[in-house]
């Protein structure tokens, strides 16, 4: 049910991983260390954010507020918030985390878990913080004995029918029931009856599995499907303690964002099938990055264990993807493991070639082809899936130093832009290629080059990050006409197999770099994996190729290249890796009107 007063809380985004509640400071922590007065002001167990504890002594005075603001006291801590902000959100701003299950930013308020009940002066009953709008002068207590007692009671109720699945549940380690039991619960069970039983391991959808016993009926998943993906597959059935989430027979949970239901599920009721039983979350190493599945570049966490990506989950970015990502993007790393890789350079006629040998041969082939056929007989096809650094080096090495004037970027489009995140343009850096002078993706220009290859006018072709045989209407025989086919790619594609020289480059998650999304926002991708064998980022391979053409600049790191881009390309002036940070920054003058700002439902 919707709350007509849902505000737009453009406040701090929720915790890094949406399902992990922030830890509560132990009593021996900063509160005690700050001295007795501060320890009194911050009740035991309340998280203390350094610098926000009130000054010892006098009763806290309420600060001045603007016309659109409200000042209130939460645990004796004064906080000023925008009108319409809820007590839960105001508490977060004050550095106090009120535990909750059913509230989720970006969706309507349900108010059913009752975990966020807090005491508000002058109100005899406790009130739920998620739905109570902060009023001027309100005095809120989130952590006194009465509130703690009620919270322990709610925890107990949630656990009485909850199965003891922790040892086999994927949610372990990022489960709110677990964390809250530790922080707020009684610590032992008084329930000695038969639990209510529901189907477990229920195949609720293409990519999501449902354990109905674990469900706490918070309805986050239902609200997601109704309000965000707007696909309406989920509903609540029956009532009382037999109430349960379900689908209509024959209409499974099957929308392009179904994985987000597993994200929002605070317990292990909804799990993402590809991740089930793969790794315990506390072993995962999380690296903030950006998805490379389409032109939006949703912000993500790439989670690895033993040098293998085990999952990708969305990271909050109000401008790009708010709280969500699509299923295709979520599994976009799959190809790292499903497609065959090659780890050492392939040079025709030279088994066990080293990278140096491969680069020598490549340079020689390019020079020879240009000499016999003329400059126009060598062309390059550069992928829009590559990073800005890759593109910059492609322009610099292939374009300027090797003298290749014909450069084309193949488009990859599929479907349509949808109402939420998915873009028709499946390349993550088309705007980057354009901004750096490689030109926008153009099937026309690619076709011209390939026609000239077929007719024999183009005899040498450098392909960076594309499988030409994947492009429409390219026959293998066409490639066989080439005298010099030099390919840089991550996987052993049919194009790689036909190359005269093929050098392995990095796949997703194996390189540092930047990309520009369709909104004109530059974002950083981070390396989460060690690339296999001799694989290197394309920019480094191109740089070393450039050495064979007289390149002297060092270009030691991706950052160094980006710094040069910022210096030389006006659109990027003023930007640095540090400035881009985890959330990226708009590129000057590159914003697409109407595309900036968050898509879909923003709350």
């Amino acid at each position, binding site marked *: 049910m919707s709350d007509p*007063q849902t505000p737009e809380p453009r406040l701090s985004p929720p915790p890094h991983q949406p399902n992990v509640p922030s830890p509560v400071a132990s009593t021996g922590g900063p509160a005690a260390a700050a001295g007795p007065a501060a320890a009194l002001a911050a009740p035991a167990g309340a998280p203390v954010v350094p610098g926000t504890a009130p000054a010892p002594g006098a009763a806290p005075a309420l600060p001045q507020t603007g016309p659109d603001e409200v000042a209130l006291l939460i645990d004796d801590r004064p906080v000023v918030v925008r009108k319409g902000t809820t007590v839960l959100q105001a508490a977060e701003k004050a550095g106090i985390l009120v535990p909750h299950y059913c509230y989720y930013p970006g969706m309507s308020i349900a108010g059913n878990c009752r975990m966020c009940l807090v005491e508000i002066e002058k109100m005899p009953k406790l009130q739920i913080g998620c739905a109570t709008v902060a009023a001027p002068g309100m005095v809120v207590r989130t952590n006194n004995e009465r509130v703690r007692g009620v919270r322990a009671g709610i925890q107990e109720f949630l656990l*009485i*029918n909850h199965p003891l699945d922790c040892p086999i549940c994927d949610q372990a380690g990022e489960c709110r029931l677990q964390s809250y039991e530790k922080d707020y619960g009684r610590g032992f069970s008084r329930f000695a009856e038969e639990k209510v039983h529901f189907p477990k391991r229920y195949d609720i959808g293409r990519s999501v599995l449902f354990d109905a016993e674990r469900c706490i*009926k918070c309805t986050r998943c239902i609200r997601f499907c109704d309000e965000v993906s707007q696909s309406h597959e989920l509903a609540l059935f029956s009532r*009382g303690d037999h109430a349960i989430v379900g689908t209509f027979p024959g209409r499974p949970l099957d929308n392009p964002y179904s994985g987000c239901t597993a994200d929002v599920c605070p317990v292990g009721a909804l799990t993402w099938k590809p991740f089930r039983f793969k790794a315990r979350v506390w072993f995962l190493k999380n690296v903030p990055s950006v998805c490379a599945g389409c032109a939006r570049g949703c912000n993500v966490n790439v989670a690895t264990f033993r040098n293998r990506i085990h999952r990708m989950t969305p990271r909050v970015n109000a401008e790009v993807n708010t709280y969500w990502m699509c299923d295709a993007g979520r599994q976009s790393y799959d190809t790292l493991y499903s497609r065959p890789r090659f780890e050492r350079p392939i040079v025709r006629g030279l088994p066990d070639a080293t990278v140096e040998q491969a680069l020598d041969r490549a340079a020689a082939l390019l020079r020879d082809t240009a000499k016999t056929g003329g400059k126009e007989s060598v062309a390059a096809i550069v992928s829009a899936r590559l990073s800005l650094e890759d593109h910059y080096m492609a322009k610099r090495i292939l374009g300027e130093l090797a003298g290749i004037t014909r450069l084309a970027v193949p488009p990859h489009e599929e479907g349509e832009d949808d109402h939420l995140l998915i873009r028709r343009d499946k390349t993550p850096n088309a705007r980057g290629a354009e901004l750096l002078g490689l030109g926008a993706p153009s099937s026309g220009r690619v076709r011209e080059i390939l026609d000239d290859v077929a007719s024999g006018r183009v005899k040498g072709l450098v392909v960076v990050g594309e499988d030409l045989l994947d492009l429409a209407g390219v026959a293998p025989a066409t490639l066989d006409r080439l005298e010099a086919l030099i390919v840089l790619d991550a996987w052993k594609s049919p194009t790689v197999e036909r190359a005269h020289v093929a050098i392995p480059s990095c796949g997703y998650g194996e390189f540092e770099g930047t990309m520009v999304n369709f909104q004109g926002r530059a974002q950083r991708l981070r390396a989460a994996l060690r690339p296999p064998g001799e694989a290197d980022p394309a920019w480094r391979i191109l740089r070393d190729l450039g050495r064979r053409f007289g390149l002297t600049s060092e270009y030691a790191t991706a950052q160094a290249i980006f710094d040069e881009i910022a210096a030389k390309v006006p659109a990027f002036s003023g930007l640095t890796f540090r400035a881009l940070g985890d959330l990226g920054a708009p590129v000057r003058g590159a914003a697409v009107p109407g595309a900036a700002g968050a898509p879909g439902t923003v709350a």
Partner: protein
Amino acid sequence: MAFEPLLTRNIHRPGSESIDVYLAAGGYQGLKRVLKEFTPEKLVEEVKASGLRGRGGAGFPTGMKWSFLPKGREKPRYLCINADESEPGTFKDRLLIEKDPHLVLEGIIASAYAIECHTAFFYIRGEFHQGYRTFEKAIAEARARGFLGKNILGSGFDLEVIVYRGAGAYICGEETALLESLEGKRGYPRIKPPFPAIVGLYGCPTIINNVETLANVTLIAERGAAWYAAIGRPPKNTGPKLFCISGHVKRPGVYEAPLGIPFLELLNEHAGGMLHPSRPLKAAVPGGSSMKILPASKCDVLLDFDSLAAAGTSLGSAGGMVMDSGTCIVGALLNLARFYAHESCGQCTPCREGTGWIVKILSRLERGDGRPEDVDRLADIAFRIEGNTVCPFGEAIAWPVDSYVKAFRDEFEDHARRHACPMRAGA
């Protein structure tokens, strides 16, 4: 004590549900009077002055509830009549709907006039098949005679009344659950605030009133607030009341009396006293199953809102249930606990999980499988539900559990200790 029947004045007339009988007995005069002599605002004040309090269970002053409507008219206003009577022990609205629908309808029209609403929804529980047919017929009759529709009695006031059937959910008697059901959804109570008077049906300002409450508005329309306020126990407990009494009594039924009659008078004079002469009164619940129980020693009380509140219980829906000495209190509580577990909508944690837990403990106690910690556990669970739920259903389960255990603790402990029901064991 002779008392002029007011709400029940017609029910014994043959054909009392027809408009002809109603008119012949002086019906719709009240409506004529208020349409002619009162502005809507004046009528609201009149109802306030009468002291009328809601007859559905909460006892909230009706005029005050009406005055919570916002001043603006950007959104239409709605009146919903709560005919979802489902509180165990309560059957008074059924009586009015089936036997004197026009008494209710006249009050609906007058109230709609007072709050300036032009569409009213009569939400009737699905099981009241007869009531549904009767009320639809009454509406058709009223429309045919110009009491409904456009320009009622030449007043310029328009009103349509639409009957909407519930489908078997006690929770839909809760105001906001009723609205959800009316909107075609699961009957889940809403988070309050906002309250229905501000954001109600379809997001518009809405008043929900009980059937009997609206029948009382007819009386006020007929004879005015001053007359009404003199009945019962003024100033805070005014008007006539339909009292239900059932269980171990000779003449279970609905009895009209002024607010404030002694419970023992209702029991012994109206209901004929205890059913079995050899089994004296053990306990009574005066206000419907959700209200706290009174052991026999505490049954010397007056039946009005404030007296019962002072006695530690509540008038509620005036659904009086009487239990004699042959009643196992644990079994009685188990029966009610099963009711609440079955009717819990399941929306919020304490009620959803707690009602089931209570049933399981009571079941064990009842069948002789009790444990020493059970009795305290029951009281503790009730304590942890009360006050922490979305709607008063939490109190509806917590109050019985809390009060039955408090008033009859020995009986509960006996069950736990003996591993048997002392009554069945012939103790």
